[in-house]
């Protein structure tokens, strides 16, 4: 830790208890358990450990030893990144930040006893629990598809092996074959994600299989950065991509993984690769903890605490917080506000006004990067957007190349912010 910190911990914790009567339970340090070591979970664990300087015991529960980012996974498909460059380990969080990293699944939450049960049998008590488990898929969202079909028809919407499988399938397509995508309905993680993926698949195919076709069935009328993507597809991949929106049956889709067919509005298409991105919901552990309403977990905007149980905080994709999109940037931004609020409650440290930002870059083709971003503030009702920007159509090649370079800088920035 480069900063020369003054140590206020002892007095802060003690006086804090007298002041605002926060819940320093029984003996020992207050305990925070974080479930999920992704964009939200890794960040909140790191900030809690860093800023409390040991005054709070932080445990991070995450089954994987390596976290493969979803962000930039499309660039791997396009050939702009190696898969290894997307992998991050939890070593520094354990060694330099003193976080107790446990590689296991959380399978139960007892809210009365305030404990989390792990698949391996361990029971972890908490004063505060943070859930950042990302997404799961809604059962039956795409007729004909369920998770058991994910090898024949990958979603590649969680990082790692699914992404590699999808790329391998694209590379093995017959000449002039068809790649199909079943795009998800709102809300889903990374609003520009499916369309960046289409761009990167087109980029790959235009080099190895230029007569191949891309077919997208989409239940949504509009999508983020639509004008920018459509301009880019026309410019770089003219004639390759067909998107069928809801007016032409894009919401009426069925797949058959055994036959490799997609039926759109009653018309059966034979396809060579089918990327099914089903409707999404909060990671299952949020359901198990009983903090969801419908598909997502509603939270307060000021501290990301659950509206159902104030000792549980929900970050990132799983949270229903208002205007922020489900993105890694957003999860990382929420994590810092959440950490500040939890430390305030547990140790009496100062809580600063919540503020959030998001920026999502997308790569359309070589050196053709675009971005969209917004600023947000907390209100009683929700996290509300107060400002936004987006790249413009017709921008110069130089600006687009600079935007792409920024995105590379951001990737390094956010992964350092998550994993130290």
């Amino acid at each position, binding site marked *: 830790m480069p900063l020369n910190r003054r140590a206020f911990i002892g007095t802060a914790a003690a006086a804090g208890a007298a002041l605002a009567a926060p819940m320093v339970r029984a003996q020992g340090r207050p305990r925070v358990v974080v479930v999920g070591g992704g964009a939200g979970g890794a960040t909140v664990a790191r900030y809690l450990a860093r*800023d409390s300087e040991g005054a709070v015991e932080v445990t991070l529960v995450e089954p994987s030893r390596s976290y493969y980012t979803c962000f930039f996974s499309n660039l791997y498909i396009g050939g702009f990144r190696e898969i290894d460059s997307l992998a991050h380990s939890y070593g520094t969080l354990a060694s330099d930040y003193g976080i107790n990293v446990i590689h296991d699944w959380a399978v139960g939450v007892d809210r009365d006893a305030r404990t989390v049960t792990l698949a391996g049998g361990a029971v972890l008590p908490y004063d505060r629990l943070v859930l950042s488990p990302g997404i799961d898929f809604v059962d039956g969202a795409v007729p004909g598809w369920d998770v058991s079909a994910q090898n024949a028809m990958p979603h590649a919407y969680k990082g790692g092996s699914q992404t590699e499988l999808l790329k391998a399938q694209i590379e093995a397509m017959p000449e002039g074959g068809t790649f199909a995508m079943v795009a998800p309905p*709102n809300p889903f993680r990374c609003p520009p994600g499916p369309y960046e993926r289409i761009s990167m698949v087109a980029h790959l195919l235009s080099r190895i299989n230029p007569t191949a076709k891309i077919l997208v069935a989409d239940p949504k009328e509009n999508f983020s950065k639509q004008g920018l993507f459509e301009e880019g597809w026309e410019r770089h991949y003219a004639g390759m991509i067909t998107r069928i929106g809801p007016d032409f049956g894009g919401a009426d889709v069925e797949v058959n993984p055994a036959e490799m067919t997609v039926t759109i509005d009653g018309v059966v298409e034979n396809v060579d690769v089918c990327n099914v991105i089903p409707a999404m919901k909060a990671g299952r552990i949020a359901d198990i903890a009983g903090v969801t309403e419908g598909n997502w977990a509603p939270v307060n905007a000021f501290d990301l605490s659950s509206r159902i149980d104030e000792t549980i905080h929900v970050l990132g994709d799983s949270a229903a917080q208002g205007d922020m999109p489900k993105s890694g*940037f957003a999860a990382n931004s929420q994590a810092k506000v959440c950490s500040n609020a939890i430390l305030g409650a547990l140790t009496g*440290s*100062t809580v*600063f006004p919540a503020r959030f930002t998001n920026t999502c870059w997308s790569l359309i083709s070589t050196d053709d990067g675009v971005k969209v971003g917004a600023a947000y503030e907390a209100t009683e009702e929700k996290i509300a957007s107060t400002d*936004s920007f987006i790249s413009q159509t017709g921008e110069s090649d130089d600006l687009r190349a600079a935007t792409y370079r920024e995105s590379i800088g951001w990737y390094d920035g956010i992964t350092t912010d998550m994993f130290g």
Partner: protein
Amino acid sequence: MIRRLLPAAVLAACLAPSAGAEVGGDPDRGQELYVYCSGCHQVGRGAENGIGPHLNNIFDRGAAALDGFRYSDDLQRAARNGLIWDYDNLDAYIENPQILVSGTRMSFDGFEDQQDRDDVIAYLRRYSADPSNIPEAAPTARALDHGVAPEVLAIVGDPAYGEFLASECTSCHQASGTDSGIPSITNWPVDTFVIAMHAYKNGRRTHQVMNMMAGRLSDEEIAALAAYFATIE
């Protein structure tokens, strides 16, 4: 983070949900007021043009942009000059349509009361793109000036506040000072840092991300950030 204890009263003051933004109007009241518009304008699922154009997706729509509605020449001229329906333009048009378009065909007396306009605009906002799905969509709230309470201002020079604010920057600018596509901002002379941030804030330097980031920072917050980033090695 360096934590400093504040007297209980002060603590309570800054822990109280600070009004960083206001969600403008009340959409439910706006729905009631919409009876003044609904004779001419449909909105919502399946809305079609009537005496006036339908108002779905009106936010960020260019003026006079719907095919199949015959707009007045004057509104079309305003559209050619770049009139876009953002919050302020809607507000002005509903206050008195002739403020923006002298010869508009919308014969409507206008809502004099700001609250009425805010409420009706909040109601219309429901039928435009949702920012959680389309992040570039028009904002749903107005940021208030960070009219920070005096007690909070007293802690603004505190590096702890600088550090909290800086956590927004380190998603992009690495605390280690490494530059892999986004410039390093560590160990700058405080003045240089402050000048650069003000240039983004007042638009003398243009960059979409940094204009937005700096635009929401007060002078004190910029000073706290400059102090913080000057100290990390």
